[in-house]
């Protein structure tokens, strides 16, 4: 066993190193220690995957976003080895073009843009916009035409101008859509096309555009169709599924007026996916951090593609959860089922929300325990038992998602974020515990796990913590130092002071 002196030396070296590197990084790249609340800065990344056709020159043209209402593009960049890249702006339509003489196999191109949310930004004017393209016309059948007229009349009666008319129309249409009655219009056609046609019929000047819904740390997203309506020289954005123009819903317009998102020559199976990450720090300093060559700028997570960055944003929070778990177990003495299961539960809470996550967890484990008790009469071997429970858990998750959907909670979906295998093990462990020690012990360990998980969640969801661990990964050295220190703590746990309280008089 290493002596205490060496241990303390090691711990102090780790702490000193962590602080030193963090401070140097702060000095060199100017990344602040405290996240400032100025503006939300989004790093958005479009990733184009396609299969190159052999011996043919390749040209890929991707529609690119420009400054729009509420957003300003701060800087943009393309990462793609061997390709020439150029941005053209024609008729107010911005496109990025990659080209190469020849390439082989699977190709991946990246376009990265830093977007600053700017509510005071300029509004879009009609004359700056590309011309409307002729659309594929939908032709109503006779019965459809009657239904369409009815809907238009209803919306017209309840509205005063183009904007309120559009809002009413979306409201009526989305009700029909969800109620599934009178869905004559929607039976054979896409929702967005029907809405488009109805607006055409009504003579409202509008267009269909594609927008990216900005949500923090998301990967593999695609664009959402939105409707823009012209109102006194100004384009107003509508979410076609939701009549209320929610400002909080972060729609970032990507391609406008029904122009194609991607054109490709010399390649097949093109696919565009989007990743994004929210950063809040002064944009200038952020940019500095990005372009710093060598030194600390080089060893920075910001240099990774956004897709990996979003992953790391979550991953780098894990040690904080682990630290909390170590603290709760060794210093407080809370019993949890499975050593680090609370951290994984907390990660799931990050995706859902604390309350919903807890409800989901309790319901899932509860149902699992009931079904597991039937299983135990089958006398299965452990591996087979766990495998069965995994399948059962997936069934429960699917079932809860369905129920949630039917009841109109989107939140049922969030169950899917729970790590299935971990849940299966939890259920197995708890049911063994139930048989051996009784329900009381199950309650103690179950609520212990949830308690630790919620503390871990609270630490991990904290903006300040998230900012520090992401921008100063070296601070994890300090986390390690604390974990080592706690690992050698031989004093009493808080709950032991309760357990041995009878010794007061001695």
């Amino acid at each position, binding site marked *: *066993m290493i002596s205490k002196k060496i241990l303390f030396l090691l711990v102090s070296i780790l702490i000193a190193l962590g602080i030193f590197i963090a401070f140097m990084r702060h000095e060199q790249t100017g990344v602040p220690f405290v996240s400032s609340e100025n503006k939300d800065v989004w790093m958005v990344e479009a990733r184009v995957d396609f299969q190159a056709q052999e011996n043919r020159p390749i040209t890929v043209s991707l529609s690119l976003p420009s400054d729009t209402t509420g957003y300003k593009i701060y800087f943009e960049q393309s990462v793609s080895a061997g390709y020439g890249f150029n941005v053209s702006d024609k008729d107010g339509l911005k496109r990025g073009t990659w080209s190469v003489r020849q390439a082989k196999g699977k190709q991946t191109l990246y376009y990265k843009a830093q977007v600053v949310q700017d509510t005071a930004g300029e509004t879009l004017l009609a004359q700056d916009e590309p011309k409307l393209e002729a659309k594929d016309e939908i032709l109503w059948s006779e019965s459809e035409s009657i239904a369409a007229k009815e809907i238009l009349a209803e919306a017209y009666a309840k509205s005063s101008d183009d904007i309120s008319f559009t809002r009413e129309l979306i409201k009526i249409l989305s009700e029909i859509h969800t109620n599934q009655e009178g869905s004559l219009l929607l039976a054979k056609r896409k929702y967005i096309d029907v809405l488009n046609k109805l607006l055409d019929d009504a003579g409202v000047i509008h267009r269909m555009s594609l927008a990216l819904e900005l949500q923090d740390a998301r990967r593999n997203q695609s664009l959402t169709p939105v409707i823009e309506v012209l109102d006194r020289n100004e384009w107003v954005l509508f979410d076609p599924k939701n009549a209320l123009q929610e400002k909080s819903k972060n729609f970032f317009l990507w391609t406008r007026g029904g122009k194609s998102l991607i054109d490709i020559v010399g390649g097949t199976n093109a696919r565009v996916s989007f990743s994004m990450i929210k950063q809040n720090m002064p944009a200038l300093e952020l940019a500095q951090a990005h372009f710093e060559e060598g030194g600390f700028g080089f060893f920075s997570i910001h240099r990774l593609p956004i897709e990996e960055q979003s992953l790391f944003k979550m991953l780098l929070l894990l040690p904080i959860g682990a630290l909390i778990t170590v603290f709760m177990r*060794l210093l407080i*003495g809370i019993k949890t089922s499975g050593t680090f299961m609370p951290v994984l539960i907390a990660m799931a809470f990050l995706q859902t929300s604390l309350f919903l996550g807890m409800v989901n967890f309790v319901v899932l484990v509860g149902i699992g325990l009931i079904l597991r008790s039937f299983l135990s009469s089958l*006398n299965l*071997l*452990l*591996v087979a*038992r766990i495998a069965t429970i995994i399948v059962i858990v997936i069934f429960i998750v699917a079932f809860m998602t369905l129920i949630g959907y039917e009841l109109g909670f989107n939140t049922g979906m969030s169950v899917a974020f729970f790590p299935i295998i971990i849940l299966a093990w939890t259920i197995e462990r708890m049911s063994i515990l139930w048989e*051996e*020690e*009784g329900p009381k012990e199950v309650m103690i360990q179950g609520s212990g796990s949830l308690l630790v998980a919620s503390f871990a969640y609270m630490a991990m969801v904290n903006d300040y913590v998230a900012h520090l661990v992401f921008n100063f990964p070296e601070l994890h050295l300090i986390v390690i130092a604390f974990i080592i220190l706690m*690992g*050698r*703590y*031989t*004093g*009493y*746990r*808080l709950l*032991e*002071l*309760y*357990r*041995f*309280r*009878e*010794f*007061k008089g*001695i």
Partner: protein
Amino acid sequence: MRAFINPFALKKSGILGMNSRNVEFISRYNSRKLFPLVDNKLQTKLLAQEYGINTPSLLFVVHYQHDVYGLKEKLQNISSFVIKPACGSGGKGILVIKGKKGDDFVKASGAVLSVEEVIRHVTNILAGLYSLSGDQDSAIIETLIEADPFFDAYSYQGVPDIRIIVFQGYPVMAMLRLSTKDSDGKANLHQGAVGVGLDIQTGKAIHAVMNGVKVLTHPDTKAQLDTIAIENWREMLLLACSCYDMSNLGYLGVDIVLDKNRGAMLLELNARPGLSIQIANSKGLLPRLREIEKVALKKIRVEERVDLVMNSSLFCASEK
């Protein structure tokens, strides 16, 4: 009334905490490679036989499923026995057969089992149903312990056992565990059994607790607990301490049962003995462990170690 005790007061009373036990005693004195020895009851038993330590006699072992078919003949001539999983924990999977009724077997509770049911139980053990890891296991069939009539008044079902903490071969603390109606015949304190702290020098009761609260009588039999005195205490300590020479585990919990005919027998060893023995004794382990750390000598005979603890006032000084 405060629910917590001041940590400094607790330190003063010498209570050993979980962290301290794990870091300063278990990981320092118990080498990991020795753990399988105590986690597998069959290995413990075979080793004990090698060292001449008294254990319930092993009738036979069933390792493989195909051995199960010979079980019927083997059990025919035995009237009472116990079937245990080798790697079971917490008393799970233990089947106690008290006697026979025709071709059928009678359990301790009085229920009657057919041969087929006994065989199915063995099959379950082999499949790993009761082993913690769920791996394949072996079934041990051994003679039934007949509790010393001395304990009849003190126990509800179940056989009482004596837990002795042995540190570096020296006896440190002891308690008697008596099953109750609440504990369902089991002798685990956290399941509601009564723990009677025994004076390590004399084997006489000094304190008794149930569910963490002091008790004076057994809740079911109403017998006085403070008059309990274990006979042949020195033999008991000798048995416990020789387990150190056998297992080499520096921090060890030894569970001993008293048989009517064969006297003290080793039931099982525990490499991570719990802390509640301190509550049963109303004394902390830490001063005693520190005292032993000062005086412990390697290579001295078990009698000398036991006599040192029994005859000198080794622990009295630190506990004044």
